[in-house]
């Protein structure tokens, strides 16, 4: 389990990185935390001719804050988010999610952008960003474009990122102080990828009522009807709707898997109602 030979470069700026990536025939690949790419290289499932290590590009570590939204750089690590290396505008959701990813050693190196770009349906950030309604900022030879997080995955391990493009940042809405969220994973063991993820975010002040089922073997699924029910009739009612909606929108999954998704979503909703009653 040793990688095939490759070249390694460490650009210091975004234009430099884009230039390295723009020549498709060079077969270059971005290397961020290496926590997914490393094993793929060792298993020789990924065989790039060149690795472009983006960890030294300061611009990719920036945090920018507006009144309603903020953006976080793609190479911030799970551990930095967990530790509160920058001010939290998610009412605790991002640090909570970060803390539940893998083990600390993986979190020390793994990056939020790497996780999203890797596009594993079971990854925590893939579900979280889609649930929160984040926007991916993508930079390529043709300039910058934005993709809604909920549409970012095309399927398992494929995203809307082109081979010459780079995810630079993620823009998120600021959650208000009255926001409530529930995040529930079904995992067989600590640090393992989730079998099912349920996310609920409710922020009446910002008009956010979103319910999501993740780790679905493909793009995470926003449960529109459950979200509406949450907005109009509350979390307990939404929990009943969610099970039905999952049966409808994910008919191709194994019944056991649908069951686990339903439970994850229901428990994320339950968390909201528990918070409401406090």
């Amino acid at each position, binding site marked *: 389990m*040793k990688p095939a*030979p490759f070249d390694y470069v460490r650009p210091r700026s975004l234009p430099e990185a884009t230039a390295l990536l723009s020549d498709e025939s060079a077969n270059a690949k971005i290397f961020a935390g290496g926590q997914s790419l490393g*094993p793929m290289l060792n*298993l020789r499932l990924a065989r790039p001719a060149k690795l472009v290590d983006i960890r030294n590009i300061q611009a990719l570590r920036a945090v920018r804050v507006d009144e309603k939204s903020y953006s976080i750089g793609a190479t911030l690590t799970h551990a930095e988010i967990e530790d509160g290396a920058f001010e939290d505008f998610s009412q605790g959701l991002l640090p909570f999610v970060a803390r539940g990813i893998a083990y600390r050693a993986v979190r020390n190196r793994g990056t939020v952008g790497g996780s999203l770009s890797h596009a594993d349906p079971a990854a925590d950030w893939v579900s979280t960003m889609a649930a929160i309604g984040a926007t991916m900022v993508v930079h390529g030879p043709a300039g910058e474009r934005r993709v809604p997080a909920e549409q970012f995955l095309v399927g398992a391990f494929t995203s809307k990122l082109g081979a010459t493009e780079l995810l630079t940042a993620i823009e998120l809405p600021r959650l208000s102080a009255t926001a409530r969220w529930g995040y529930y994973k*079904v995992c*067989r*063991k600590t640090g*393992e990828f989730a079998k099912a993820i349920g996310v609920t975010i409710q922020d009446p002040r910002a008009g956010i009522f979103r319910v999501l089922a993740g780790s679905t073997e493909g793009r995470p699924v926003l449960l529109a009807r459950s979200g509406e029910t949450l907005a109009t009739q509350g979390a307990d009612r939404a929990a009943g709707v969610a099970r039905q909606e999952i049966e409808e929108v994910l008919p191709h999954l194994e019944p056991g898997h649908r*069951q*686990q998704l339903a439970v994850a979503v229901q428990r994320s909703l339950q968390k909201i109602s528990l918070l409401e009653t406090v």
Partner: protein
Amino acid sequence: MASEGIGARVLRKEDARHLRGRGQFVGDIRIPGMLEVAFVRSPVAHALIRERKKPAGFENSVIFNDDMPGVLPITTRSSIPGYKVSDYPALAAERVRFVGETIAMCVAPNRAAAEDLCELVDIQYEELDPIVNCATGRASGVKPLHDGWTDNLFLRTSFDQGMDEVIAKAPVVVELELSTARQTMHPMEGKGLVAWWDHRAGQLVVHTSTQVPHMIRIGLAECLGIPQAIIRVAAPDVGGGFGYKCMLMPEEVAVAWLAYTRQGAFRWIEDRREHLTAGANARQHEYKIKAYADERGRFLGLDADVAVDCGAYSVWPFSACLEAAQASGNLPGPYDLKAYRCSTFSVATNKPPFAPYRGVARPGVCFAIELTIDAIAKAVGREAWEVRLENLVAASAMPYTNVTKKFYDSGNYPASLLEVKRMIDFDRIRSEPRRDAKGRYLGVGFATYTEQSAHGTKVFAQWGLPLVPGFDQAHVKLTPDGALEIKAGIHTIGQGLETTLAQIAHEQTRVPLKDIRVVLGDTANTPFSTGAYASRGIVMTGGAVSVASEIVAGRIKSIAAHLLQVRPEDISFRDGAIFAGEASVSYEDVGRAWYMRPDQLPDDVDRGGLEATGAYKPQIDSGVFSYASHAAYVAVDAETGLVEILDYAICEDCGTMVNPMIVDGQTIGGAAQGVGTALFEESPYDDNGQPLASTLIDYLLPGPTELPRFRISHMETPSPYSAHGLKGVGEGGAIAPAGALVNAINDALAPLNAAVHTIPASPERILAAIAAAKPTLNDAA
């Protein structure tokens, strides 16, 4: 001075280097000029090899079977009638029989370059239908995996005693179909070896990560066709073995051949992917059980059909049949059972060759018999522990010869069961609601087992194995400065023998523990031992160390008596010195007298000097039986299928404990692996014989957060038949968890009328069991 002998809770001598990362494992060994080996392995489960081509310019760095003329395949003969022999080649030439089988050896300056070379080797396959499970493999008319075989079984056995009578009149009959998953053993350190040619000694030196260095020397000499005298096998630190490292592996033969023929240094270090695929070789059984009982749940008879998914070849020396033999012999467990019928099928399949993993067959049979007991209890409407108690061999019946002629030497099995029932607080659990605040279902389960340990000559001969253990030997020597050196051919693989053997020597000689050194596992300087397996080390080698130390202690006394001018009977050991009344000499004085100032000694001094080789085996070859009861308390989330272990209690008895902390360590480590067997670990194969768990993402090992705090209590019933009353304890912990945990899960699921019969009890299996019991999922919510 606090005691350091048998029974003392002393820290392990080996820990200082291991805790500081200063152990020396195979991967730490560097020999100048050493080259790395990587293997081209079969990507298909079953195929004829049509063509093999080396890349141009690398003819010497790529080795095929034909490049190794005279090297024999690994062949395990057996004296059991009906046993079929398989030839397991170091490198396959004409046919491959499992994914991961070695076909070519590629040599390069480093592993990455060796793997690059592997990719350039061109092998053409003509695929054949694979046999991927027992059902296909034992069906009549299936084409056998090996030429010249009449059916596809390595062996078929049957045992039948007294069943006909029972079947006719038993009021209660319980039927069960059970299965256990294929597993990989996952020692923390994988397999690996460095082999090099020692020009000075004129010897092939093999540093291999093994439990059985002396056996590996025999096996290598046979396969390479060279004299044993020119092979030295020296095992370095070994980071866990569990049975994976008690067999001769094709990679060992191939790399040793390279070093021998090229007179250079070569190494191969197994990586985790190789282990997960080519090493998926343990535990997979299938059971069809029919149990007969009376209205109280007393066992009247047991009828079992047991199939073992043996993989493609027989391993050496333990053969493809040890597992089934152990299964058939141990299925009756600790129970008083008079009538028993058992047919076993050792089925050849296109999977890696089956090897004996910690507990050898018993985790499977314990799971089977313990689920059977619970099913009987359910059928007669009693608590499972009561039915268990009803059937356990009573202390008053000891020693007890069971229906398969196993001789249970000593112990109180019912007491261990009652103790774990108390520890787990069974009565409180039963008085409380069956669901917790989160709505999870709660359940408690038990399992009791016996662990035949240190079984010897006659037992292994009866299993027909090519290499039968006899006496184990150890060499003990007092050095000129009064320290003690112990040499034994067994090896320590993490079980603490450097400490426990020293404790036994201390018991006899009273030389302070810090002055006792233990050297193990090197054929160049240790007496012969078949090695570390079958929970035999402390009994066999411990016994040999005891014998040798006793001899040396006597000689120390004689010389000391002369120096103090008293009779040897007047000498006693105390406080690290040698006394006659108030007068004393030191161990160093004695050593110096023999080695450096023999002029001080009388002419008739014992010329054996201050060293001796002792040999030992217990008075009986049938083994000494450790045993334990386990109790598990679990919460099952019926919506997700996830299980949490709330509490876990163990009451074990391994006879006299040399070091209770090491007994605890062995028990906890084994039980952790048992939790893996029960809930997590599984190497599934698809219909093409492709292993589906090729990384640790797919193969789940329990981690610290998945394991309970095992609570252990000890009983200590010395065996009347072994030195110091010792019994083995290496394997036991791993045996019972699957039985106890799945019984607990099924107890929890009882209100839903669901039960799991396959391990691991994964969330999917638990949800499927619930769904099968209730047609719609929605009800569970």
